């Protein structure tokens, strides 16, 4: 440990570990979000759903802290002078994804909407696709830090998953409004579907930004 403290590369090692940790946090948050919504659809809001919600809160807080620490280190140590803006922009997008997933789950926790069984399969698929979109952003971001040229190999997957999420969300909404549910429930459920779709939308925006950052990062 003492050797690590006197190493001139210590700051770089610490910062790299923090960036990797933030990416891990976003990926785990996407899984927690998918499990939380899935569990709610199947079992309602119980102790397990509450536990997942707390887990997602913790990820969101950790993400905020890591983003702040990384940003501060980049500026105070004058690191990555040519790409620090892009890196901070990317970290900001990842943090917004955490915020949005948490927000989506907060609304479910407060409103606890009753989702009719005929919509369960489509709803689960939509949430899983949104989580996959976020996971692909994390994969592309990891690639950006090591091999920018290969980033585009992952970005097209982000677009694919976002398209699929949107298609599924629209299908659910169409079915909702064709059903016999009262209008207030239709509107409430539509709002929840949009919240899931919004996570994928934000992930897609992050993917677009990442594509530009990757092109800028050339020798």
């Amino acid at each position, binding site marked *: 440990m003492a050797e690590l403290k006197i190493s001139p590369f210590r700051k770089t090692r610490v910062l790299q570990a923090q960036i990797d940790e933030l990416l891990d946090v976003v990926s785990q948050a996407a899984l927690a979000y998918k499990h939380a919504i899935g569990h709610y659809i199947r079992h309602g809001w119980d102790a397990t759903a509450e536990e997942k919600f707390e887990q997602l809160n913790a990820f969101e807080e950790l993400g905020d802290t890591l983003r702040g620490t990384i940003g501060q280190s980049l500026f105070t140590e004058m690191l990555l002078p040519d790409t620090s803006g892009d890196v901070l922009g990317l970290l900001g997008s990842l943090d917004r994804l955490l915020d949005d997933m948490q927000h989506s789950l907060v609304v479910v926790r407060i409103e606890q909407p009753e989702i009719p069984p005929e919509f369960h399969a489509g709803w689960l698929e939509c949430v899983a696709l949104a989580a996959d979109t976020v996971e692909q952003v994390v994969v592309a971001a990891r690639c950006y830090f*090591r091999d920018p040229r290969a980033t585009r190999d992952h970005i097209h997957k982000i677009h694919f998953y976002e398209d699929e999420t949107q298609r599924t969300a629209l299908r659910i909404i169409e079915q909702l409004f064709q059903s016999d549910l009262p209008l207030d429930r239709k509107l409430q459920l539509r709002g929840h579907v949009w919240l899931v779709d919004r996570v994928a939308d934000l992930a897609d925006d992050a993917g677009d930004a990442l594509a530009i950052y990757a092109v800028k990062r050339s020798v």
Partner: protein
Amino acid sequence: MGLTFFVFLSSGLLLGWSLGANDAANVFGTAVGSRMLRFSTAAAVCAVFVVLGAVISGAGPSHGLGQLGAVNALGGSFTVALAAALTLYGMTKLGLPVSTTQAVVGGIVGWNLFSSTRTDLTALTRIVGSWVAAPILGALFALVLYRLTDRAIRATKPHILWLDQWTRIGLLAAGALGAYSLGANNIANVVGVFIPASPLGDISLGGVLTLTGQQRLFLLGALAIGVGAFFSRRVMMTVGKHIVTVGPVGGWVVVIAQSLVLLVFSSQSLQALIMRVGLPAIPLVPVSSSQAVVGAVCGLALARGLKGARQIRWSVLRNIALGWVATPAIAAAISYFALFFVQNVFEQPVYQSAMVAAGQ
């Protein structure tokens, strides 16, 4: 004699100062302009390595410059250096690219004309040839280095933070090598014309180190370049901003390529090695670091293929090439008229007839 010598040497020191203030930017401009290195660090490293390069390896190019014309009177040396400094100042004011080497060579040719000394056409051809070779060599080095660096980065896939860290270290090392090469190659421009007329003798430093008279002269000139480096912030920022579009790693390639060009035209060991292998000898002559940098930047652009070649501003290159032709001609003219003025108005000897005759 001592004081007179230093008064005359002042024009050479002024030339050294301006060379430091301008050419340090070629070495560290990319690193400072892109905020990869602090200016104070860059200037300090530059000053130290310029002095080391000049004192240890400065003899070769100075000998090459001496073959062009041995300015044998202090008044002449003073005037030639002053003519070069005035040319540089005027060209900078006009916004034209400057080369200290070309200004000094022009100044010496002006002295040769004034003192009716025959200009050694072989030496002149060698020097002018190196001006063509330096940018071409710079482009070639940059092209090869870019390809190798790009391949190495693709193969190792370093994390962006480690790439940044290694680039900083690389820029510092490349800058140190560049400053050493600048000192070794360009010290001839600064005090080369004073060598034949210098009264400085050998000196022993505590019995540990002996400096020859020539090395003492080089040390003085190098200190002037080193001091000049601390005044190069603005030029460094300008060069850095112009070259920064190639990125820090590209900047590293440019600095290494330029340093290698200067080293090739300075290193006596390298010349001996090349001759041992049976290849034609590389002339040890002072070359312009600006020319090498321009060549290296073009090489870097060409390494990116057609897309890179389209990014080259050919009109700017044409202006730079015109500046390379104009600088020695203007310096020769100023030197000729200034020598006439110094000799006839201030009544200072600017050449020694006997030696001139012997030279002929």
